[in-house]
């Protein structure tokens, strides 16, 4: 284990439970105990991408009651002694469905839950994995991001999910913070976790299964689903250049098909973000306002991506906000 690894106490978890209780008292729906009320979801249909490496490919969708929050890819890696989970989905129910998929494949204990970043569709399933002996791991900036956004994400769950699914869903902050790199030993199998500088978010973390060369990129890689910008467009473009040089067997994007060739899988995202930055710069230079730019930029990418209408304008706004300071 190298790099700065910081232990965070169980105090956080206790505090979160208190927070949930307080929310319940304030009129929100119940805390984690409500999990029992959630109708079980069928085990997530996972694919074995390489020996011991499994992932679920989510549909391109927004969180809504029918999908119960299962809109981001999630996965797990099985070692000789233990299992590591990579992202947990957008609700407690999805986390439980992932756990059911794991149980259908192995009886080994889940020892690690790795969150690739703060977005709710990737980590609101954490609650289903909370148990003695399970360690939650995230980027060094994940805890802070969660502390700022967690309440908003839970509130949002009540708008997006059925009441029982929202009620069962809780925030579980990381126990271990990765500032640089960290290795997880699953017994005869090592996962390499790497914290990245601000790109998709300010807390992107990737997971490489060294044995098979399978790289879980989280939302640093979007395929098919329009990339969403919540960090830094310049940082993301720069990080893509670094990521592209890596020699890996296959990658798993945060959204899109599983087990893709690298770096070929990166090409569409790179094109979109590069063109977005160029076009927004032109708009700024031409004296167009943020709203004018939002209406004009990226339209030639409209047919290339799922959920384009839902996120392109917001990407323009985020890019404009960043690039006007250049």
């Amino acid at each position, binding site marked *: 284990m190298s790099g700065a690894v910081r232990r965070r106490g169980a105090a956080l978890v206790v505090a979160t439970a208190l927070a949930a209780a307080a929310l319940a008292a304030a009129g929100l729906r119940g805390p984690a105990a409500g999990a029992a009320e959630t109708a079980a979801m069928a085990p997530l249909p996972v694919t074995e991408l390489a020996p011991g490496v499994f992932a679920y490919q989510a549909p391109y969708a927004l969180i809504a009651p029918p999908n119960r929050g299962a809109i981001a890819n999630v996965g797990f890696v099985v070692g000789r002694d233990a299992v590591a989970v990579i992202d947990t989905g957008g609700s407690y129910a999805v986390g439980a469905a992932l756990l059911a998929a794991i149980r259908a494949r192995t009886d080994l204990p889940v020892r690690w839950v790795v969150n690739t970043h703060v977005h709710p569709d990737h980590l609101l399933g954490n609650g289903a994995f909370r148990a003695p002996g399970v360690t939650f791991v995230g980027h060094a900036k994940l805890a802070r991001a969660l502390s700022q956004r967690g*309440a908003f994400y839970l509130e949002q769950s009540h708008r997006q999910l059925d009441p029982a699914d929202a009620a069962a869903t809780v925030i579980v902050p990381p126990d271990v913070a990765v500032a640089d790199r960290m290795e997880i030993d699953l017994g005869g199998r090592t996962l390499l976790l790497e914290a990245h500088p601000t790109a998709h978010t300010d807390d992107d973390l990737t997971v490489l299964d060294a044995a098979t060369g399978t790289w879980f990129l989280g939302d640093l890689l979007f395929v098919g689903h329009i990339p969403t910008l919540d960090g830094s467009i310049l940082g993301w473009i720069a990080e893509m250049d670094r990521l592209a040089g890596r020699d890996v067997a296959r990658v798993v994007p945060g959204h899109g098909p599983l087990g893709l060739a690298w770096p070929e899988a990166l090409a569409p995202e790179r094109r979109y973000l590069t063109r977005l930055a160029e076009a927004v710069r032109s708009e700024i230079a031409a004296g167009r306002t943020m709203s004018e730019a939002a209406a004009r930029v990226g339209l030639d990418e409209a047919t290339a991506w799922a959920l384009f209408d839902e996120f392109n304008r917001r990407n323009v706004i985020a890019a404009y906000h960043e690039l006007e300071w250049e």
Partner: protein
Amino acid sequence: MLDDRSAAVRPGGDRAVARGAAIRGAAGTEAVPPASPPRGRAGGALRRMPPFGAVLVGTVLAAVLLAAVCVRSGVATAAETLPPDATWQAIRGDIVGDAAITDGEGIVTVGAPYRADDAAVVPIDIAATLPGGRRVRTLTLVVDENPSPVAATFTFGEERPTLRLSTRLRINSYSYVRAIVEADDGTRYMTARYVKASGGCSAPALKDEEAALANLGKMKMRYPPPATPVPTAVVEPDGKPIMAQVMIRHPNYSGLQMNPVTMLYIPARFVTSIEVSQDGERLLSMEGGISLSEDPTIAFEFVPKSGDPLDVTAVDTEGSVFSGAFPLSDGAG
């Protein structure tokens, strides 16, 4: 994926809109929200602004409860029928007192998205050309449904017949956004636009807090070229106007953002005033609050009095003062 701050990605909201559209279609008419309220004295319901924390906590709880109720019961009835401006009627007296208000349609335009893409950063473009030789004295931006409805008030040192100003606001829920332009003879013109947004005040826009705090107070001035030419019919007796965009790095913490672990609100800290002057004379001053987005920015049109730099001074709630001088040539073009 990120989150649903955009009204467009609210499943519940979309359902309501679709239903509303169907109803309007059946009636064969397009429902247009009223642009301005009836004239006259506002009702007695004054919305005082109690101490910050108290009102914010209450509002957030109320909003959360309301959201929980509304979503399950088919969302905002306001989206299906015409959104009433009852809130405005209640707060009007606090904002303009008994003053008469003239319908600003055709005089004051409010550029705002019908659906906000990011409720924490909603770009607003205001333009006005006053009739009858009147000149613009102040501009007030109001977001009816925000916890603190007056987003900002701008006072122009240089009174001109036209106004162009752009800024970015947080919008907490479906709301009218109003621009009230006060002329030098006291006439007030008001135009309102309905904007669908949610969570703008409670959602942190901060994408990288470390960078944001490290840069707090940093300022920049841009002199963007006019993207759209000023109408030639407008007489500019005082010279040729140019645009200036003041930008200040500041998280503008709204006080509505909660830490779920401690259950404490992140304390409010925001820019309360910005003043731009040239040669010691004020061009523009702004008084604002939590509705201004992170990294507050104001782009405005003015006629330079000379070739001298613009001086900018901003103050936040902690009393921090940020200032800078920006030569007109810098960043021009």
